[in-house]
C-alpha cells in the first residue's frame, strides 16, 4: 500500500510523538539520576544533565545498601529462574513426549496456577514463613517466586518442546538414550532459543515483583522494589535517591527485555499469541 507524501509525513510525526511519550519518562528517570539535586526542582525543568553528577548514585551505594539489594534481586531472580527452568523442562518433556493419562489436566492445572492472584498464596506463606523462620530470607523469597515461575516455565517450555518433531528424540531413544538423556542431549539444545526466552521471562517476573517481596521480606533479603517504594515516605519524598535507585533497578531489566523482544508477546500472553 503506497500513500501520498503528506500522509506519510503525518504518520511519521505521529509515530515519533508516540515513541517519545513512551520513552521520555524513562529518559527522565535516567537523566535525573545524573542531575545535581538543585536542578531537580527548577522551573523550567532542566532536560539534559549538562554536568553529570554521580553523587546520588554514590550515596545510595554507600549509605543505602544498594549493592545488597541489587545482589538480592540477582540471587532471587536467577535462583527462581534456575529452579523453574530445571524442573519445568522435566515437566514439559514428560507432558509433550508421553501419551500419559491426565496430561491435559496437569497442563491446565499449571496454567491456572500461573494466573492465580498472588494474594491467595501470600497470606498463608506469610504465616508459614513466620513460623519456619523463612521471613526475610533468600530461600523464602525464591520459593515464593517459584510459585508463579515454575508453572509459567513448565507451560511455556511445553509450547516450545511441542515445536520440535518427536521423531528426533525417538531416534535418540532407539539408539539407547534414556529419556532424561534424550531431554538433555537432544531436546534442550534444539529448544535453546525458547529456553533462553523462558528464562528471561522468569527473571523479569521475579525482578519486577513487588507484592511478594514487600510481604515476605524487610531488609535482609529485600529486592530492589522494596527500598525503592520506601523512598516515598509519609513526610519526605527522596527524589534524587529514587532517580538513582530506580535507574539501578530499571537498566538491567529494560536491556534484557530489548534483547528478548521477539518473544515478548508470547511470554506475556502465556503462549496464546506468538509474534
Amino acid at each position, binding site marked *: 500500500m503506497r500513500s501520498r507524501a503528506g500522509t506519510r509525513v503525518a504518520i*511519521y510525526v505521529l509515530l515519533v510523538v508516540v515513541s517519545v511519550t513512551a520513552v521520555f519518562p524513562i529518559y527522565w528517570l535516567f537523566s535525573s539520576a545524573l542531575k545535581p539535586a538543585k536542578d531537580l526542582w527548577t522551573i523550567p525543568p532542566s532536560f539534559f544533565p549538562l554536568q553529570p553528577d554521580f553523587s546520588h548514585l554514590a550515596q545510595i551505594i554507600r549509605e543505602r545498601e544498594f549493592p545488597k539489594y541489587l545482589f538480592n534481586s540477582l540471587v532471587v531472580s536467577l535462583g527462581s529462574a534456575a529452579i523453574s527452568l530445571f524442573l519445568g523442562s522435566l515437566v514439559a518433556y514428560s507432558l509433550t513426549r508421553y501419551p500419559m493419562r491426565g496430561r491435559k489436566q496437569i497442563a491446565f492445572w499449571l496454567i491456572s496456577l500461573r494466573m492465580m492472584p498472588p494474594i491467595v498464596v501470600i497470606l498463608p506463606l*506469610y504465616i508459614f514463613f513466620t513460623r519456619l523462620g523463612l521471613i526475610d530470607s533468600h530461600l523464602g523469597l525464591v520459593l515464593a517466586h517459584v*510459585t508463579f515461575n515454575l508453572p509459567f516455565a513448565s507451560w511455556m517450555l511445553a509450547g516450545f518442546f511441542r515445536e520440535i518433531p518427536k521423531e528426533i528424540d525417538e531416534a535418540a531413544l532407539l539408539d539407547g538414550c534414556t529419556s532424561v538423556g534424550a531431554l538433555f542431549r537432544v531436546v534442550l539444545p534444539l529448544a535453546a532459543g525458547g529456553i533462553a526466552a523462558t528464562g528471561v521471562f522468569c527473571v523479569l517476573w521475579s525482578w519486577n515483583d513487588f507484592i511478594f517481596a514487600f510481604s515476605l521480606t524487610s531488609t535482609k533479603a529485600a529486592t530492589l522494589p522494596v527500598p525503592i517504594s520506601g523512598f516515598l515516605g509519609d513526610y519526605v519524598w527522596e527524589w534524587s535517591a529514587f532517580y538513582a535507585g530506580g535507574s539501578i533497578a530499571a537498566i538491567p531489566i529494560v536491556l534484557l527485555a*530489548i534483547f528478548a523482544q521477539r518473544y515478548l508477546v508470547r511470554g506475556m500472553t502465556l503462549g496464546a499469541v506468538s*509474534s
Partner: protein
Amino acid sequence: MKWRVRRASPYFMLLPAVALLAFIVMYPMVFSFWVSLHRWYLGKPHLFPFIGLRNYSTILLKDAVFRIALLNTLRLAVICIPVEFALGMSLALLLSRGDIRGKVIFRTCLVMPVVLTPVVSGVLWKFLLHPSYGLVNYFLSLLGISKVEWLADPRLALFSVALANMWQWTPFAFLLLYAGFVSLPREPLEAATVDGASGWQAFRFITFPLLTPIMVIALLMRTMDLVKLFDVVYVLTRGGPADATEVLTLYNFRVGLNYFDMGKAAAMSWIIAAIVTLLSQLYLRVSRIEF
C-alpha cells in the same frame, strides 16, 4: 523390566515439580481456605472460632470498602482498556503499512514501558504528577492550565492511576495487535481490495473480525491484571485520598497484613481468586489453547 521403567519415567519427571508445587502452593491454599472459615487475628493466635461462611457474607454484603474497591477496579478497567485498545490498534494499523521505515526502532521504544519495574514506574509517575515540581503540570502551564492536583483531588486520583497504567500498557496492546496483524492471512484483504473495498471497509469487515480472538485475549488478560493490581496504586496513592483509589488486591493486602484480620483476608482472597478463575477459564476457551 526396561519397558516398565519407560512407562513410569514420565511420572518420575513430573514428580519433583508437582511435589514442590503441592508443598508451596496447594497446601498453603488449602490452609488459607481453612482459615477463611474462621475468625482469626494474627495477634490472638489462640482464638480460632469456626464461623462457617460468615467471613464471605460479611465481605459481600456488609463491607462498604470492599464494594468501593470492586467498583474502582471495574472503573479502572472501563477507563484503561478501551483507550489502550484504540491507541494500540491505530498504531498497529499505521505500522503494518508497507511503506513505513524504522519499524524496529519504533517497536523497541514501545517495549520499554511494558517491562519497566512497576514500582519504579509508579514512583516515577508520582514525581511527574507532582503539583508544583512535576513535569506534567509544567507542560500544562505552558498551555495556560494552572496547577492540577492529580493525586490529592479525590475526583482525579483514580484517573491519574489509570493514566500511569495506560502509559505502561498501551504499548502492550500495540505489540499484541501488531503481532496479530503480521500473522493475518493476506488473501482476504487482497481479494477485498481487488473487489473495490475502501480502506475502512476492508478494516471493518475483514481485519477487525480476524483480530477479534486476539482482542478478547488481550481484554481478559488486562482485566485479570487489573484485579491483581497492587504495586502502582500502593506507591501512587495507597488507595487514597479517602478510598478514592482503593482497589481489590490493595484492600485485601491491608486487611491481612496491616489489620491482621486473617480470616477475613483469606476469604477475600478467595473471592478475588473466584473472579480471576472465571476470567481465566474464559481466556482458555477463547484463546483455544490446546494441549
